[in-house]
Structures are given as C-alpha cells and as structure tokens.
C-alpha cells in the first residue's frame, strides 16, 4: 500500500545550522501521526518540506505517492494545511476567507465548510483582526478541512483553542482517520498527541529520537519499583539485569527503574527475601522529558 507520507533522509540546513537531520518517516493512510518535540526541534521545518514550502537540503519527500516537490500542484490539491502561528488577512472576515479559499480550490460545495463553521462556532462576519487567537485558529481549521482532503497537515492545531473546542477537534481527528484519511500533526504537548495520535514520532534538535505507537512508547517507559528487603542486599546482581537501573539504595531499601519484562527482575528480588514491593506504572511524561533532555543517542527500538 502506498504510504500517505514518507520521507527519505530528509535534511534541512540553514547555513551552518541544521534544522532537520536525516529524517526517515513513514505514515500509513488512515493514521493520525503526531510529531512531538520541544520548540525549535524542527517540527515546522519538517512540515514546510512536506508542503514544498521549503526545499530539503538533502533527501526527498513522498506525499500520497507523489513527489512533494515535483508534483506540488497535484499534491496540494489533496492536502489541507494549517500553518503553525496561523496568520490570516486582518481586514477580511472569516466568510471572505472561506469563500476565497473555496473558490481557489474549485470547491463548489460549501456544505462541509458550513458544517464546520457551526460545529466549531466560528465567527465569520467580523474582520479577522477583531477576533481572538482561538477564533482565528478555528477559521484556519475550517480552511484546512473544508475540501475533505486525503491528508491533513496541521502544525500545532489546538493552539489557542479552549478545552471544549480541543475535545471537538479530537473528535474530528478520529472521524477523519475513520474515513481512511490521514492526519499529520505536530505538537509540543504530550497530552494532546497521546489522546489523538495512533503513532508518535519524537523529534529533538532535528533528529527523530523515537517513533512508535503510544502503547509501544509506554512499554518502553520506565516503571519505578521500590523494594524493602529483610536485610541489605548486593546491588550488583540487580544491576546486571537488562533494563534495570538502580536509582537509589539505602540499606535494605532499593529503588529501581525497570523497562521491558518484569519476570527476571521479580525472580532475583524473590531470591533475596523481600518484605514489601511497590511499583508505579510507566510514566510517559518522564519518558518524554527524558527524550527532550537527553542527547539523541538513545533510541527506543521500533516496536512496529
């Protein structure tokens, strides 16, 4: 099956600054893919290269089976785009925006646009300069979705939306994916991506440091385990186990970070006469913060 988006060694350099480095992504149709990373990680640059707004220094992008830079017009016909830091024309109203963009796409049927305007309670009769950030963002969403594109590329789509509208937007994403259409969105917020994305890529300093399903990432996230033994134990044996890090040891009380399977760890613990054990679930937040902070050397194995 043709992937919805595929990048091959995508790299963008501005002079000596590398914004995106050797990015290889593959997004299947019908997926919601979330590109997650701190500000300045290269998310927007990646998105601009998908849309051929910027040229890659190296590598190439395939969108809906076409070359993003050679077949720009054909690709753009099938994409809906919401830029990050959306800017509209201040003097035009929402309605004027919608009708101009609809006409530019040769869209005669405005029923979906009308439906989205109602659904997101978009203010369409006032010049954009009089609207709040959230209301402008909603106009941007209508412009991106109104022609029912096969691929949606949304750069920080929920910025400025109130929680109610964020919920509505998440529903819209699920419906879109349910219809077999694909969504590529970027965010710096874990919560947002966790709720709506099937797969997540984490980008840091222009490099993809992890790519997996949310469940897969959760499996890779460390569990914190605290054990009280009857007497002090030799940590060496615990340390030698795969995926185990001793984070604290105070006499008979030992704290571990455990990734991966828990069986081998439990067997070793059991052999040392434990008194008590508490285990906290995988903390995804901690995992992401780890990715944000660490140099991008550590790569989570792709869980498929």
């Amino acid at each position, binding site marked *: 099956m043709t992937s919805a988006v595929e990048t091959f060694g995508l790299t963008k350099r501005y002079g000596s600054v590398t914004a995106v480095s050797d990015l290889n992504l593959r997004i299947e149709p019908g997926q919601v893919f979330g590109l997650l990373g701190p500000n300045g990680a290269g998310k927007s640059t990646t998105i601009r290269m998908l849309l051929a*707004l910027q*040229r890659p220094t190296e590598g190439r992008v395939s969108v809906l089976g076409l070359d993003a830079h050679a077949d*720009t*017009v054909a690709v*753009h016909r099938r994409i809906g785009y919401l830029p990050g830091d959306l800017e509209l024309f201040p*003097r035009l109203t929402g309605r004027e925006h919608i009708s101009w963009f609809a006409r*530019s796409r040769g869209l005669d049927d405005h029923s979906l646009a009308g439906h989205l305007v109602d659904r997101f309670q978009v203010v369409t009769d006032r010049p954009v300069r009089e609207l709040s950030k959230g209301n402008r963002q909603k106009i941007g969403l209508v*412009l991106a979705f109104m022609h029912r594109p096969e691929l949606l590329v949304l750069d920080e789509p929920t910025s400025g939306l109130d929680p109610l509208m964020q919920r509505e937007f998440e529903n819209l994403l699920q419906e879109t994916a349910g219809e077999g259409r694909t969504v590529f969105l970027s965010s710096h917020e874990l919560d947002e991506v966790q709720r709506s994305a099937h797969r997540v890529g984490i980008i840091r300093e222009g490099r993809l440091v992890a790519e997996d399903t949310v469940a897969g990432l959760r499996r890779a996230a460390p569990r914190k385990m605290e054990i009280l033994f009857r007497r002090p134990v030799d940590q060496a044996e615990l340390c030698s186990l795969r995926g185990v890090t001793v984070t604290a040891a105070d006499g008979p009380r030992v704290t571990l970070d455990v990734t991966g399977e828990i069986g081998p760890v439990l067997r070793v613990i059991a052999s040392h006469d434990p008194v008590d054990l508490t285990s906290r679930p995988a903390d995804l937040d901690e995992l992401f913060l780890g990715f944000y902070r660490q140099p991008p050397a550590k790569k989570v194995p792709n869980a498929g």
Partner: protein
Amino acid sequence: MRANITRLDLRLRRRSTAGYAIGMALYSLIIVALYPSFKNSASLDSLSGSTAAALFGVTGKLTSPGGWLNGNIYGNFFPLIMLLLTIGYGAAALAGQDEDGTLALIAALPVRRRAMVFQKAWAMAAQALFLAAAVTVCVVIGRGFQLAVGVGDAVAISVALMLMGLDFGLITMAIGAVTGRRGTALGVASGLAAASYLLSSLASTISAIRPGRYLSLFYWSVGNDQIIQGVSLGDFTVLIVVGLCALAASVAAFRKADLN
C-alpha cells in the same frame, strides 16, 4: 486559474489604490486648473534651465503646456506616487506577505509558484493602470483650461510612466523574492529609483553624468522630453524589456524561495 490571487491582492489594497488615485487626480486637476493663471508668467520661465529646476524634473519652458505638465505632474509627482504604489506593492506581494505569514496559506494551494508571481504582477499592473488612468483623464480635462496637449500624447506618456513604475515594482518584487525581506526590497528599490531620477534629471545640466542617463528608466519614460517629442518605440521597448527581465527574475527566485 482558480486561485485568484490578483483579485485577492486588489481587494486587500483597494483602499490604498483608491487613495493614491484620488489624491493624484485631485492634485492633477488643481494643476491643470491653475495653468491659465501662470501661462503668461515670464518669471516662471526664467526658472528653467537651472540645475535646481532640473532637480525637480523641470525641463523646457514651464509656461508651455508640455513644460507645465512636465514640471508639475509628469516630471515629479506622478512618477513619485506611481513608484510609491508599485514599489510598495512589489515589496509586500512576496516578501511582505511571507514575513506576515499569510503567503504560506496561498502557496499551499494547488497553484504553481510561477502562477503566483504572474498573478501578483497583474495585480500590480491593475493598480498602476488605475492611477495612470486617473491622471490621464485629469490631464485631458486640462484641454478645457487652455492646456493644448494631444490626447494621444497624454495617454502615451502616462503609459510610459506606468511601465516605468511597473519596472521598479517588479525589480522590488524580485529583490523580495531573492532576500525574503520586505525592508531590503523597499530600501534597495527606492534607492535605485532615486538614483535613476537624479541621473536623468541632472543629466540635462551636468555634462559629466550625461552619458549615464541611458541607465536611468526615467530617461526612457519622461526625461528625454517625451512630453514634447512623444514617446518613441525605442522608449517603450526599453521599458517593456526591463519589466519582462524583472518579472523573469522574480519567477526564477520565487520558485527556489523557502517560505515561512
């Protein structure tokens, strides 16, 4: 072509376009209406021929119909307003809208970069045409105020000045497409236009810079006594060729440009 960028940009600039045209029309009407009061003023003619007069675009006898129009409209104010319009739009059209962040929405539509530039060039031409038409109509009205000027001559010189405006506007657009910066485009193009004006107007009195006048687009539109002699085919050719080159440069640069 579905993405009607020309229409959008004209809509966005309709106030400024109307403002320039109305202002210039009113000014032109006042100038032509004042002509009967000045046509016999001998002291005015003594101004001509000085370097100071040349600095203000005044050539020939100020009291003659052609000299009056040249010294008050065609030699200075009309090109100035025309250049404000075309250079302003040329800087905003690509680099300015990109800096504002609005260009990305349009560039993500199913429209070629080349078509975007062409449509913006049409928008520039439409604005310039509107201004030129307003001035021409007012100058022709001047025939009722003893300004003996041929309709054809008035149209020709307005068209020549419009083409010169478009040349500088398209040069501005090209600089904007190369640099992505509105300020740079505005600054460099305004500098070029000012140098071009000085080169042409001072060439009539300062012999040292006389050979350089061929480099000035003012010389090819209004600086070579076109108001008296008429605009030649050669003048039009130079103005059109320069415009087409600037347009081609804009397209070439914009096709490679990284947008925000």
